[in-house]
Structures are given as C-alpha cells and as structure tokens.
C-alpha cells in the first residue's frame, strides 16, 4: 500500500466520527462536510511529510473545526449583515476548542449523524443515498451507479434529502436513554436497508452495488463499537456477515441466481461466517432476543450446515415461529413456510401460506414458493399458474430465469396457461 492509499483508508475510517463531531460544532451539514473536506486536503499534504497523527479522528476534527471557523469568519466579513445566530454558534464552537474529545460524546455524535439519515419523510432510497454520501463519503457518481440513475439526478435527490433533513431539527443535546434507544433502532433499520439494497442486486449490478453491503457492515461495526452491549446490534452485524458470506456462491457463471440449497458451500466466506457466529454467540448471552438476532440465528443454521441436506429445518421453522410472534408479517410467515415445507412437507406449507394470498398477491416470492409447494404435491396445473405469475412479477432477470427452470421441471404435463 502506498502512502496515499493508507492515508485514504485512514480518512475514510475516521470520516463518520469526524463529520459527526463537526456537525455538532457547526450545526449545519454542509458546513460540517466542507470543514471535513478541508481537513482531508490538509492531511494529504501534511501527513506524508510529518507522519500520521496518533489519533487521526481528533486531528481531523481539530483542523476541520479551525478551517470551518476561518471560512465562516471570512464569509461574515464579506456579508453586509453578519448572521447573528451563526456568529454566536461559532463562539460556542471556539470555546469548545479546549474541550477534551471523549468517547461518550463521539457516541452520541455518530448516532445523531446516522439518525439524521433516517428521517421518516425521506423515501427509502433517499435515506440510503444520504447515509452513503454523508456518513460513508461515497462519491455521488458511485451512489448514482448503485441506483442505476444519472449522476445529476442523484445529486438532486441528495440535495433534496439534505433540505428535508435540515428542516427536521434533530436536537443537538445528548439524548435521554429512551430517545437514544429509539434512535438506535431507527439507525439499525436504515443500515439494514443499505445492506439489502446491495444484497438484492441482480448479477449485472453486483459490481455497482456490492460496496453497499460492505458499507453497511462497516457502519454497523462502528455502531456496535460505540454501543458494545446491544444484543440486537450484534445480531444485525451477525446477520449481515452471515448473508454476505454467501456472495461468491449466489450467482453462477452465466449470472443466474443459485438457490441456497444448490450453492457451493466451499465458496462461502469462512472468516465472515466465523465473525458472524461469534457475534451471535455474544448476543445470545444477553437473553434479550430480537428480530435481528433471530434472523441471524436462521442464517447461522444455514452457515453451520455443511451440505443443504444437513440443514436443521425444524429449528428454522421454530425460529421463524418466534419471529412471527415478535414481528408478525406475511413475509415472515412465507419464510417460515419454506422451512415447514422442508421439515414437514408441502401440504403443511401450503396451508400456512394460503391465507396470505390477499396480502402477497403482488409478491414474486409468494408465487414462486406457492408454485414449488404445488409442484411437490403434484398439482401441476396450479403450479404452472403460480410460476407464470411469479415470472410476471420478477424484479430481476435472474429471478425470472430461475422460475423458468422450475417451469421446465414441470415437464410436458398439463397445458400451459397463458404463455
């Protein structure tokens, strides 16, 4: 690694902490980001000569703060009427120069920065894009390519999202325990959105979207470092790692989706699985189960099975049953039905999902699973109808291609309905 490479890594690593602290000083996202940019420029010219500082984040915060104060001073001299409020804020910031940077303050700063991105008015993509831009510092071009939109469209989307966030007035005081825990769960949900946006990508998009999974994991690790005793955050990180560990096995050479049971398990990333299992172990000691821990436990059972046939389906059925109680949703029941199919047979599985038809009529996986159950029961005509509907609802070419192989598996029996 060259000098510039490791400096860049250090800057990226320190970014969430530094931007979060600068946001507290300047109380304005753009000013905080500009101050951080300035600090990075100085780091690039200074560190190769003088060596890296002992605490990169603290250095960037100090330098960024000074740069931000300077910039605001210059601006206020140029403006006819200085903004009173802004000036008094800056005096506060200057007064804080001597303040020691301690861990507990960082913690609420980072949480606030992440929480800002979870604004409920923001659409899902807005939340994800904002987090990737502000917290991770990914370039607009890279985010745009992940969402398959043009750079200027993404730029606009991020600017709009920032505008909404600026009006939201997230308080800058340290939050109380209840508020903190609410923020934490909103942030966890947002990070899982970022992860899923990357994970659900089709084969042709994996290159553009894989960084989303890596970013989500990196930010969740950061969150767990500042909230080390939260079992659900351990569960979330475990869940992401265990799912991401299968990445190399999820598509075949032609880009077709490979189902879990057909994946080459030797291609799964063992170190990632190891870390996921270790985190889940830690989480379970707390005896405070939650949705992320349960989903991670399901993923762990897959990870522990050396072959698909060794999968402990009854246990997965059991885990999904607890998830249904905790977080009832038709999608959870559908997932459970797959485990029931493996553990008890297609009849039970079909009975479990029949009541979901109304809720999941527009859901690809519902029709795919229903088709598979019906096929297993020998009800070919109905299976064919379900598969046809699934194809119509497929979100990616790989999904549609997979269902077509299922259709082919039905053989020449029955009549083709619509195609």
């Amino acid at each position: 690694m060259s000098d510039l490479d490791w400096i860049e890594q250090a800057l990226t690593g320190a970014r969430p902490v530094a931007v979060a602290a600068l946001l507290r000083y300047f109380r304005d996202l753009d000013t905080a980001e500009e101050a951080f940019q300035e600090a990075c420029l100085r780091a690039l010219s200074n560190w190769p000569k003088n060596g890296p500082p002992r605490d990169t984040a603290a250095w960037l915060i100090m330098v960024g703060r000074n740069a931000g104060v300077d910039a605001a001073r210059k601006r206020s001299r140029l403006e006819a009427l200085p903004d009173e409020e802004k000036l008094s804020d800056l005096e506060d910031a200057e007064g804080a120069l001597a303040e020691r940077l301690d861990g507990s303050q960082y913690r609420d700063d980072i949480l606030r920065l992440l929480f800002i991105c979870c604004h409920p008015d923001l659409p899902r993509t807005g939340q994800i894009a904002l987090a990737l831009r502000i917290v991770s510092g990914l370039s607009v071009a890279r985010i745009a390519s992940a969402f398959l939109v043009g750079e200027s469209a993404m730029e606009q989307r991020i600017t709009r999202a920032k505008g909404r966030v600026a009006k939201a007035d997230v308080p800058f005081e340290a939050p109380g325990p209840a508020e903190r825990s609410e923020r934490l769960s909103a942030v966890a949900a947002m990070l899982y959105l970022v992860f899923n946006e990357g994970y659900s990508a089709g084969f042709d998009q994996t290159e553009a979207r894989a960084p989303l999974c890596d970013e989500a994991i990196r930010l969740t690790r950061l969150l767990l470092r500042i909230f080390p005793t939260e079992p659900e955050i351990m569960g979330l990180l475990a869940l992401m790692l265990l799912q991401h560990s299968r990445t190399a096995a999820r598509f075949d050479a032609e880009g077709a989706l490979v189902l879990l049971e057909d994946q080459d398990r030797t291609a799964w990333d063992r170190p990632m699985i190891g870390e996921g299992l270790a985190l889940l172990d830690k989480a379970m000691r707390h005896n405070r189960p939650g949705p992320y821990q349960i989903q991670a436990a399901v993923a762990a059972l897959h990870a522990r099975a050396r072959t698909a046939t060794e999968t402990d389906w009854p246990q997965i059925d059991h885990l999904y049953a607890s998830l249904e109680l905790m977080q009832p949703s038709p999608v959870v029941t559908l997932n459970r039905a797959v485990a029931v199919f493996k553990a008890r047979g297609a009849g039970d599985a079909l009975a479990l999902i029949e009541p979901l038809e109304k809720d999941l009529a527009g859901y690809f996986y519902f029709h795919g699973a229903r088709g598979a159950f019906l096929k297993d029961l020998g009800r070919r005509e109905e299976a064919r109808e379900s598969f046809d509907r699934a194809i119509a609802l497929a979100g990616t070419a790989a999904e549609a291609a997979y269902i077509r192989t299922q259709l082919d598996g039905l053989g020449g029996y029955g009549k083709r309905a619509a195609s």
Partner: protein
Amino acid sequence: MLYAILCYHDENAVCGWSREQDEAVMGRLMGIQDRLAREGKLGPVARLMPTTAATTLRKDRDPPLVVDGPFAETKEQLLGFYLVEVAGLEEALAIARELGEANPGGAHEVRPVGYAHMGDPAKAITS
C-alpha cells in the same frame, strides 16, 4: 530469546480495507511469515477478529463480570500478534520493521516473552 510482536492498528481503517487491499496486505505478510518459519524463528501467529467480537472478563471483582467489547478503549486496537524466536531486541525490531513495511499504519509493540506454552506439553518455554 522469545519476543511477542503485538500489532496495533486503527480498526476503523483496517475494517474498511477492500477485499483486494486486505488480500494484498495478507499476501505480503505471509511471504515474511513463510521465510521466518523456514528460518525456524516463527512461533504462533494470530489475526484477531474486530474488537466488536470481543468479550472481556473483569476479574477485579468477585464474581468476575463479563462485559462486551475489548478490555481497553484505545485509538488503535490490538488486532493480532506474532511470537518470534530471535537473538535479541535488534532482530525482533528488524522483523517488526519488515512487517510494518508490508502493513503500514498503526504500531508494533515488541515485548520480550517471560513464559510461553505452545500447546505441546513437552515444550513450555521460559526465558
């Protein structure tokens, strides 16, 4: 003389390495390890998982308390270690320097080992 080389690095930076960067660093380190092993100087080597996977047993109270996370909150974290059998400090530092060039940033603490057990009952080492 047995030395421990304790590897400290900023975890935020190391966890942000791309797979390619990580593999490149590990590849360089393994080259050095292979050579040290051939020279009969290499003891156990470990790369530790991130501190988020750590659990600490506080035994300064009774009963001991199990807490999540690493023992110390530091700017750089203990992310791995080497044991090397060398002639003395200079040689240990030379190895640390070489490992540092392959994996820049952070610090290597070079510490003489007072007692070690390599797992083989016949091979406890006391310096």
